[in-house]
C-alpha cells in the first residue's frame, strides 16, 4: 500500500484522505496510519507546492552548479556535502557519478546574489577544486508536470 499511496500523493499531496482511501480500496484509518508512519520514518519529507514563479511578480534566479571537490582524510562526501547544503541558498543538492562530484541548485533573487555566493562561499572552501555555474533560463517541466496551461479534454462527449 505504501508505494501506491506515495505514487498518488507525489502528484497530488492535497488529495482528501477519503478520496485517497477510496482510490486504494482501503479504510481511511489504515491510510492515515500509513501516512503518519511514513512521515515519522522520513519517507515523506514534506508537502511542497509547485509554483510557476515566472507567472508571479517575484523575481527569482535559479542556477545549477557543478562542483568538483577533493575528499579529505576522515571526511567523506557526506561531510563535505553537509557543509554546502547547510546554506539556506542551496535548494537541492545531489552527489553525482561522472565528470564532477556535486550538483548544487541555488535560488537567489538576482544573478549577482548567486554569483556572490559561488565566488565567496562555495569556491573558497578549501576542498572545492572547481565550480561551473549554469543559470536556468526557463523551467518547462518539473516533478513530471509541464508548466503550461492544461489542455482541454478534446474527446467527443459520448462515444461507443
Amino acid at each position, binding site marked *: 500500500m505504501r508505494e501506491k499511496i506515495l505514487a*498518488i500523493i507525489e502528484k497530488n499531496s492535497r*488529495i482528501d484522505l477519503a*478520496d485517497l482511501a477510496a*482510490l486504494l480500496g482501503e479504510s481511511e484509518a489504515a491510510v492515515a496510519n500509513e501516512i503518519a508512519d511514513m512521515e515519522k520514518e522520513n519517507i515523506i519529507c514534506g508537502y511542497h507546492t509547485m509554483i510557476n514563479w515566472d507567472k508571479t511578480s517575484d523575481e527569482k534566479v535559479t542556477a545549477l552548479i557543478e562542483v568538483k571537490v577533493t575528499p579529505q582524510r576522515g571526511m567523506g562526501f557526506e561531510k563535505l556535502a553537509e557543509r554546502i547544503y547547510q546554506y539556506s541558498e542551496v535548494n537541492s543538492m545531489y552527489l553525482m557519478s561522472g565528470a564532477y562530484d556535486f550538483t548544487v541548485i541555488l535560488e537567489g533573487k538576482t544573478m549577482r546574489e548567486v554569483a556572490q555566493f559561488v565566488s565567496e562561499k562555495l569556491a573558497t572552501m578549501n576542498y572545492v577544486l572547481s565550480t561551473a555555474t549554469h543559470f536556468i533560463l526557463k523551467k518547462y517541466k518539473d516533478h513530471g508536470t509541464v508548466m503550461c496551461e492544461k489542455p482541454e479534454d478534446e474527446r467527443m*462527449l459520448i*462515444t*461507443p
Partner: protein
Amino acid sequence: MRNPLSDTIVTIPPSGIRKFFDIVSEMKDAISLGVGEPDFDTPWHIRDEGIYSLEKGRTFYTSNTGLKELKMEICRYLKRRFDVSYDYSTEVLVTVGGSEAIDIALRAMLNPGDEVLIPQPSYVSYTPCTILAGGVPVIIELEEKDRFRLTKEKLLEKITPKTKVLILPFPNNPTGSIMEPGDLAEIAKVVEERDLFIISDEIYSELTYSGDHCTIAVFPGMKERTVLINGFSKSYAMTGWRLGYACAPEMILTQMLKIHQFAILCAPTTSQYAAVEALRNGDPDVNHMREAYDQRRKFLVKALRDMGLECYEPQGAFYVFPNIKRFHMTSEEFALKLLEEERVAVVPGTAFGDCGEGYLRLSYAYSLEDLKRALERIERFIKRLDGKE
C-alpha cells in the same frame, strides 16, 4: 427517381449512442461520463515513432496484411501475454481498428441465414455487422445475477441448427464483466460439441483488475475455431490511430484478407510504425494506465454505492454499469432527466441492447476531479428522486 438505397441498410436503426450524442452535443455546459475511449494521451515514445516514420517519408501503402515487423510483434505479444501462438505470415491481419476486424470476420464467415449469437449488453456493432453480412443476429441476454458473464446454460438455450458463430465480447463494454478461465472452459466445450465458431473481441484485454485476461483461443481445439480480435485503442490509448488486428486460422484469414484488400487496402502506415513501438516498449505505460483505471474504478463503485446506487463490481474495461431499476424509469428517461436537470451525460444501458434496460453506463476514463464533479451532481439528482431534498 428510383429509391437509391439498400433495403438492408435502411432497416438497420442508427446507433443508440449516436442519438444521445446529438442531444448532449447541443448542451454547452454538460459534463460527461459518456466516452468510450481513454483520457490518456498516446504515450510520447509511441507518438514520436509515428512522427519519425513521417519524417523518414514512410508514407506508402504497406502490404495488405500489414507490416511484417508489426505482425511479428503482435505474435510475440500474444505469446508473451496470453500464451497463444500465431504464425505472423499466414494468421495475422492488421486492420483499421478492432471494428473493421469484426465486420470482415462476419462477412468472411456467414452465409445467408446463418445465426450469430450475440451476448448483450455489448458493443454496438455486432448486430448491424451481422445483418450486413447476411446473417441473423440472435441475442443472448446476460444478467447481473451472473455478473454479466456468458454461462453454458444461456448459450445452450439459443443454439439452433443454424447457429454458426458466437461473439465473445469480453472484457465487456458496457458492463465491465470478464470471463475467467473456468467460465471459458465451459463455453469451449459447447462450442466444440456444437461445431460453432467464435469471434472473440478482446480489445479491453489489458484492462482487467482481478488477474490477467484469458483468451478462449488457448483452450484445446479452440484456436482452429476462433477469430481473435484485438487492437491498440484501449491498451495504448490510441483510439484515433485506428489500428487493430485479427488472428485466425489461415483458412478464415485468407478470406478476410480478400475483403480487407478490396475495401481498405491496408491499415494506416504511420499507425503501424507507431504500434511496433507500442508493442516493443509500451508495457510500462499499460501498467501505469491500468493502475490508474483500477483506482478510479474502486473510487467510482464506492461513491455510487454510498449514494444508494446499486452497482455490480466490474472487473474489466473502464465502465461501471449501475442498476437504476428502483427508480422506476427507463434508462433513457433517467439519462435524459439527469442530463436536463444536472447536465451530466451518461449512456443509457439500452444503447447496448434491450437487456441494458434498467442500467446506465458510466465511464471512468476521466480524471479524479472530473469524476468528483460529476458524482456531486449525480448524488444531488438521486437525493431529489428519493425525495430527500
